[in-house]
């Protein structure tokens, strides 16, 4: 079963099973399982969003720093709850107007062509 990795994550995040909670500045946790080819999709429920807080979710290689947000470097691709902006190498681009919030179910798909 895919869970939040107990060790491939920033020490200050609280994670247990498939649930993760962050505080203060952005920090990252990766899943216990990764993929390297083919087309994959995962979904999460956005359970709780305190006032003025936001999350970013997406896909990350193992090289991406844990003490930053997904989409900060060339090793990861992020989607932000605020304005629905997508990020890669710390550059935000318009992607999904209005963003997402608590109560939404978020889906992330990655397509890694097998023959490339």
């Amino acid at each position, binding site marked *: 079963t895919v869970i939040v990795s107990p060790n491939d994550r920033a020490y200050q995040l609280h994670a247990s099973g498939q649930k993760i909670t962050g505080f203060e*500045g952005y920090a990252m946790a990766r899943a216990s399982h990764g993929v390297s080819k083919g087309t994959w999709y995962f979904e999460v429920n956005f359970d709780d969003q305190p006032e003025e807080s936001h999350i970013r979710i997406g896909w990350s290689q193992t090289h991406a*720093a844990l*003490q*930053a947000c997904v989409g900060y470097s060339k090793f990861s691709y992020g989607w932000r709850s605020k304005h629905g902006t997508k990020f890669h190498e710390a550059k935000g681009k318009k992607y999904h107007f209005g963003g997402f919030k608590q109560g939404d179910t978020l889906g992330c798909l990655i397509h890694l062509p097998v023959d490339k």
Partner: protein
Amino acid sequence: AMRHQHLANKDMRLLQRRLLTSLGDASNDFFKINQLKFRKKMIKFARSRIHGWGLYAMETIAQDEMIVEYIGQTIRSLVADEREKAYERRGIGSSYLFRIDENSVIDATKRGNFARFINHSCQPNCYAKVLTIEGEKRIVIYSRSVINKGEEITYDYKFPIEDDKIDCLCGAKACRGYLN
């Protein structure tokens, strides 16, 4: 706990004694750091022969005395990396970023106290020590030898070695030539 069972009694006593002394040090440091606030008068700010401005002893300071706390904004390492790039882009001189541990840095570039003006020397009369007080890590500058009245306060910045060098102006006999 598992390890303790394997420790012979004598080691256990040694371990306990070491624990107590370390606790003792911390509480002693805690007491001394609060004294620190009232002892700022023993140093003054003035032009430095090393670089720009510096801090000078206004009285003779004994060895291993707490002199001043290096105060600034506590930030995470990656935030410090981003700031260092931003400061360089804006031409803000040598950074006043002081690494506490692998996770955090104290940045005194824009907010902090005058400890940021203490210059580096390769043969310093002070040293910096990271104290953990009530779970919070703080940086304190201690005298490493007796400092005479009128002497400039200096400590070794211990900057990491880098390719693009910053010349060292400390003028000490054993000067290493560069800060980094």
